[in-house]
Every structure is written in C-alpha cells, then in structure tokens.
C-alpha cells in the first residue's frame, strides 16, 4: 500500500507540473466565462446587414416602426428591479410576457400564494399595454370580469381593478430611469427590435434597383409589402370562377421577401411577426370588434404541464424539474469526456514509461500491481482535483456571477442551475460513477498501453474500445426520454455502460433494485478488470517487439499470477 501511494504521489505531483493539467483546470471556467461574455461580444461584432422595405400599403412599415420605439416594459421592469434590489426575479410564465391575461391567470395554481405574487408581477408587466389600459379603463374591467373565474383564490375582481387604478409607484420611477439611459442602452429595452446586426436602409429606389443590390450582395433582403395586406374577408371574397383567375397577380398584390440567403431566417421571421401584428390590429379595427374580444378569439387552448408524485397526486412541473430531467445529459457527457480523456492520458503515460525504459527499474522496487494501481490512483487524484475545481467554480460562479452581472443570474435561474447543484442524487452519483467508471476504463487502457511500444500501435488496439465507448453517447437521448425503458435497463446491466446509463437515468429515477444490482455488478466488474489488467500489464510492460494477438492476451489472463507466461522476446 505504501508503495502504491508513493507511485500515486509521484504521478500526481508530476501531473500538477504539466501544462495539460492547468489547461484542464482552466478550461471549464474559461468556457463558463466565454459562454456568458463571449455571446455578448460576438453579437456586438457581427457584421451589419442591410435590408430595405417597399411598402405599397402605406401603413404597415409605419406600424412596425412605431412598435420599435415603444419601451418593452416587461424587460425594462425586470432589469430595473434587478438593478435596484440586486435580486433576480422569478421566471415569469411566458403568457404574461406576451400580455395575455387569460393565459396568465390560467397559469396560476390557486392554492399557492407565491404564484399570486407572480400574477401581480405579471400585471405589472402589463405596462406594455399601459397606453391602452389608461385610455380605456372599461375595456380592462370588462376583460377582468370575463376572466374572473380564473382569478386566484383570495383575489377579488375589485382588487385587480384597484390595482390597475393605482399602478405601482415604481412605474414612474422606471420611466425616469429609462429617460436617463443613452440611445444605445435604451435600444435594448425597446419592445421590438430587429434581430441584432440587421439595419433597415431608407430608400426610394425602385424594386428593380433593389433586386440588383440584393444580387450584388449589397443588400441582405428586400421586403415588398402588398398594396392591401389586410385583404378581404374570405366570406366576402368573389368566387374564383367569376373573377380574373387566369391572369398573373400584379407585383403589388403579393407580399414578398427577396433574398439570396436561404438559411438565416431570423430577419424574415421577426419582420413577418411584426407585420402580422400590425395587420391584425387593422383587421380588428375594420371589423369593429373590441380589442378584448379579438384577444379572446386569438387566445389558444393552453395545457398546463403537470406531473404525478409518489402519492399519486398532481404536482406542478417547475422549471427546476425540467432542468433536472435534462441535467443528466450534461452530466453523462462530462462523465464520458472525463473518463475517456483521463484513460487516454494514462495510456499515453504508460507507453511513455515503457518506451523510455524506466519500467524495469520501477519493477525492481514495486510489483506490477502496485505500479499499475499507483498510476491509476495518481491520475484519479489529478482528475478529481480538476473536477472538484470545476464544481467549486460552478458553485461560486452560481453565487457570485448574478451579483456582478444580473442578467447572468436570470439565465442561470432559467437553467435551474441552483436546483441541479443541490439535487441529492445528481452530483454524488456523478462523483461515484466517475470514480468507478474511471477505474474500470483506466485499467483497460493501462493494460492496452502496457502491450504497445508506440502510440501508433495503441491506436490499432484502441479502435474496438473506442467503438464500445461510443455506445453510451448514442443512447444518451433515448435514455433521457425513457429513463426506465428497455434500452435504459439493458444498458444499466452491462457493467461497462453502468456508470453512464445509471447517471443518464437519474431523472427517472431508477428503482432502488436497479441501483443495488448494477452497483454490485459494477463493483465486481471493476475488480475483475483491475486484476485482469494487472496480469496483462505485468507481462506486457516488459515486452518489446510486435504487440500480442488478442488470443495471446487471453492466455495471459488465464495463467496464475505466480507463473506468468511470457514471450521469447522477453528473455
């Protein structure tokens, strides 16, 4: 044991001195920072792409422009609150963001008072419609009346109406805050902005000229808005048979998007959405329907997401629960990567030790088993140091980043990072499966390394192992979708896949019996593989010449330790 420790210690100390170690330590935090700030930076440095609009209707473009100067009170309010209290607000139901009261109320679980707070927050968000709200109080009261059956318990219609009458004092503060922002900063709080990097050019040029500019690459796209995009109601439309169905429609009658880029659809999607909103408003006006009725007609049927708990009761599907179901994907991927990379390191390291001939000196002091386990543990210590550093960064990052950069806090909240960190199963099982999986694969790779004289030879032997190792990656998504399905269970009971499959299933969660049986199976396998690898290692490490055939390695495995077979070239 003492010698195993000495070998492990040397391995560890030497690893700490390598560049690869520090790169490994820093890779994760760097990625963390890059992901967060990099995307912001990238979006700033994007090329500016120009587009033009020909508006035959005469009002659609103006409507879109108007929408682009309205402040997005939703965003603004959130940013404002964070900036003021430095506390990330909870993630609002999507319906509230879009301003649909009916859905917003439907999202609320009547028995949960904290959800009531959410609704109130949601109404605050309603500031987007503030001009209309203030102008047309009756409409609002009517709307609240209509949806009163959806009001949370303990919240009367009068309360809601009263709330609208006395808008939160923050709102006025907020307006002055916005006014103090400069043009560039203000832009990000506007309700609707074109996807970043797209800029509209104002032009009176003809469509033909603009098409040429698109062809030359000067313009990214041209929108042509038809003369009458609002159109005629279908019921009032003349029948095709008695009209001029045969003639080609005039270019002014059809709205078009002209571009030679077929892949980036962001601009088209945004513009179409904005134009549709403008046209919808126009249609509502033409039909002389109340805006509230129109919104009511437009509202879809919303299904609430519910889960079932152990007592058979319905429970809310929180963002946390969703994050937890997908978290295993990330964890399995990191596990796989860590195990694979570290086993590879061990392989390289073993071949190096063998090729620089230090091995025999070592074997005069330690047994092959001590040497092998020492190397494996030494590298495991290195790997765990890296992994723990990552976890540490992850924790402190999750705590400190929101304080420095509130938007990050919101993003992390959305990803449910806090709930992933505190989940009682995920992190511990990750660490346990990391250790066991690593022991298993590193022993295999150590054995492979011991019979090879060069990395090139090792690559040939590695091919089958790599193919075997790819499988958990292929079953990653199927197992997430069906954590207790056939594939998941079969994979869990194949010991070399147990660490990946069981971690993959952790959202399930798998029945206790699966945990117990697979763990026993895994422990036995780890032991058997370690012993087998030690036997191969003992013979292989002193061998020169061509690598052995698989059959030869199997023969070594069968022989007792005290009578190791060997080859002629080893004498």
């Amino acid at each position, binding site marked *: 044991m003492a010698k195993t420790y000495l070998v492990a210690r040397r391995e560890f100390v030497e690893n700490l001195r390598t560049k690869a170690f520090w790169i490994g330590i820093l890779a994760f935090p760097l990625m963390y920072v890059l992901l967060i700030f990099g995307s912001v930076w990238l979006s700033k440095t994007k090329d500016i792409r120009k587009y033009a609009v020909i508006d035959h209707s005469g009002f659609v473009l103006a409507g879109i422009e108007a929408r682009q100067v309205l402040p997005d009170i939703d965003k603004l309010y959130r940013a404002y609150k964070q900036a003021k209290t430095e506390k990330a607000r909870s993630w609002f139901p999507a319906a509230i963001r879009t301003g649909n009261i009916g859905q917003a109320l439907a999202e609320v679980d009547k028995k949960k008072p904290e959800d009531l707070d959410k609704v109130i927050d949601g109404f605050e968000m309603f500031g987007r419609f503030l001009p209309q709200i203030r102008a047309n109080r009756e409409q609002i009261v009517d709307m609240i009346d209509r949806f009163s059956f959806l009001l949370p318990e303990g919240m009367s219609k009068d309360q809601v109406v009263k709330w609208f009458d006395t808008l939160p004092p923050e709102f006025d503060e907020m307006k002055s805050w916005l006014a103090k922002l400069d043009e560039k900063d203000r832009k990000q709080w506007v309700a609707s902005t074109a996807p970043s990097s797209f800029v509209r050019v104002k032009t009176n040029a003809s469509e033909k000229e603009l098409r040429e500019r698109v062809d030359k690459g000067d313009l990214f796209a041209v929108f042509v808005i038809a003369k009458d995009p609002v159109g005629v109601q279908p019921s009032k439309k003349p029948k095709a048979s008695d009209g001029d169905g045969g003639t080609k429609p005039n270019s002014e009658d059809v709205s078009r998007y002209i571009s030679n880029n077929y892949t980036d659809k962001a601009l088209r999607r945004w513009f179409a959405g904005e134009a549709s909103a403008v046209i919808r408003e126009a249609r509502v006006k033409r039909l002389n329907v109340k805006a509230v009725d129109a919104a009511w007609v437009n509202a879809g049927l919303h299904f609430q997401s519910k889960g079932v708990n152990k007592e058979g009761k319905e429970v809310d599907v929180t963002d946390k629960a969703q994050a937890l179901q997908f978290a295993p994907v990330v964890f399995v991927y990191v596990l796989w990567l860590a195990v694979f990379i570290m086993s590879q390191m061990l392989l390289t390291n073993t071949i190096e030790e063998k090729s*620089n*001939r*230090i091995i025999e000196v070592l074997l005069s*002091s330690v*047994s092959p088993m001590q040497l092998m386990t020492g190397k494996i543990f030494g590298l495991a210590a290195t790997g765990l140091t890296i992994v723990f550093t990552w976890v540490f960064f992850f924790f402190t990052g999750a705590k400190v980043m929101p304080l420095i950069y509130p938007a990050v806090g919101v993003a992390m909240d959305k990803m449910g990072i806090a709930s992933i960190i505190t989940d009682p199963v995920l992190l511990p099982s990750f660490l346990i499966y990391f250790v066991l999986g690593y022991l298993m694969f590193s022993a295999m790779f150590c054995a492979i390394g011991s019979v090879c004289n060069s990395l090139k030879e090792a690559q040939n032997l590695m091919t089958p192992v790599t193919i075997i190792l790819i499988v958990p990656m292929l079953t990653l998504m199927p197992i997430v979708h069906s954590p207790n399905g056939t594939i998941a269970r079969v994979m869990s009971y194949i010991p070399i896949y147990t660490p990946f499959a069981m971690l993959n299933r952790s959202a399930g969660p798998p029945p206790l019996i699966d945990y117990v049986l697979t763990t026993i199976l895994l422990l036995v396998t780890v032991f058997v593989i370690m012993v087998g690898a030690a036997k191969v290692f003992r013979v292989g490490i*002193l061998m020169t010449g061509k690598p052995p055939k698989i059959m030869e390695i199997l023969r070594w495995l069968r022989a007792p330790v005290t*009578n190791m077979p060997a080859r*002629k070239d080893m*004498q």
Partner: protein
Amino acid sequence: MHGSQSNGLALDLEGVTKRFGNFTAVDGLSMQVPTGSIYGFLGPNGSGKTTTMRMVMSIFYPDDGRISVLGQPRGELVKDRLGYLPEEKGLYKKMKVREIVTYFGTLKGMNRAEAWEKATQLLERYGLGEWLDKKCEALSKGMGQKVQLLGTLIHDPDLLILDEPFSGLDPINMELMRDTILQMAREGRTVLFSTHVMYQAEEICDRILLIHRGHKVLDGPLREVRSSGDQAIKLDYDGDGRVLHEISGIARINDAGKSAELILEPDKDPQELLRELVGKLVIRRFDLREPSLHEIYVKAVGDDAIIEGVH
C-alpha cells in the same frame, strides 16, 4: 552487512528453469553467490543472464527450481535490500535529478527527508552538485547513467544486481562504476553483475559463472577457473599475423591484429615459440600467463560461442 544468511550466501539458486513458450531461456541453473563477494555473471547476449536476474528480482517467476535471496525464499520479501540496475534503463525526463533519486530511495522504503538528504550527498559526491534541481532531460548520457546508478545505490542495498553495468560507458564512467563496485564489496555488500565482455570480469571479480544458452558452463572463484592447466601467451606485435598460423604447437590463436593470445599445446615450450617468432614479427610483448576468461569460455562451449560472436 547483515549476517542473517545462515549459509553465508547472498543468493542461492537451485535448478532454476524459465521457459517462454517452447523456448527455454534458463535451464536448471544453480548459482551460489557468497555474501560480500563480487560475482561475475558471464555469457553472450541471449544466454539467459537477464532472465535470471529478473527472476532474482521477482519480476519473473521461475517455472522450476528454487531461489533464495538474502536467506529468504522469495525476492519480494527483501526487495528493499536489493538494488537492481537493468541493462535498459531510463529516467523520467521531466523530473528533477534530486527528486528522481529521492523517489527511488522512497520506493525502497526510505523516508522522504532521509532519501532527500542522501540523494543530495550522493549527487554532490559524484560531481552532479550543479544538477540537483535540473530536469533529467537536460543531462548528458554519461550523467544520466550516473544518476541511474545512484538511484540504485541510495538505499545502501545488501545485494546489488547490475545488468551489463559497463555497456555504453565512457572510460571515466567505467572507472567510476568499477570503483563503486569495489567500494560496495569493501563495505561487505554483495555485487552480482552480468557482462558479455570477459576482460571486465577478469579485472574485479572474486567469482564468476559462465552461462551459455541457459546452461551453466562452469563457475567458481576466478583464480580456480583460470588455472585450468593450459598455458597461454599474450603477444603484442607488428607485422602480418598470418605467420602465427604457420607455427606448430599452438592449439588456438585469438588474433586481434596487433595483439594475440596464443594457447599452447601441453608439450610446446614457450622459449621455442619465441625463437620461432623472432624475425617473422616485431615482438613488443611476450607474456606467459594463464589463459584469459575469453579463452576459457571458448574452450568450454566450443565453436558455438564463436558462431554467436563472443568477443
């Protein structure tokens, strides 16, 4: 040093056999190495020396026979009292010189502080004081060999096993290696070393063992082995060595071009030989003595040895 070996043998092999598949590398070898002796283990390349040494070090296990190391039935039990310098040796390139010597010391059971102290002392004594904290990759080949040797000695082993310790050494390091071996023996430690270069063994060995194709050819104290009865002449000369073959009464000639060893037939008079040579060659030295180990070896194994290229 330690008097624990009841029979005074540092190493005792009896009928040791090691097979690799169909190939028998060592065949029924018996060897007795007395405590405190310098023991030469001689034989051509591929004769089973390294395999035997690896069995002593418990790197291999014999298929047959018995090995007793420092009085223990298994080498593993006394690994910390053995020092082994394999023929193929290396260092961790990225490790510092003092650290690697210390590491070898700790692997032999020394505590770190003690090993560190001893490594510093040894490296300074062997002229590597300036290299203590340099990485091994910066060492020249000769310095690397010194460091490897020190790694083998740091724990003051009772039995030192050196596999081809002189191969690849420059004259200065060869001298150093010889002095080290003698020093070890003077301290009462036992040194077993293998070589295929016979004259190296002649210079310092108390006892030798000749091995050929896994079989022991002969063993015993160097003096006894050499006084086998034959007469030999060591001749240094200028001229055409072919004339030596025209002279009668010479059993064998080991001609190296400028010097030769002539093995006389029992009834040949050396004085007569000298008279016959005068005029044919310019004689620089004419030395009557016991046959060399090389000659003994060639005689013992016959023409096989020549075919296999014994020097």
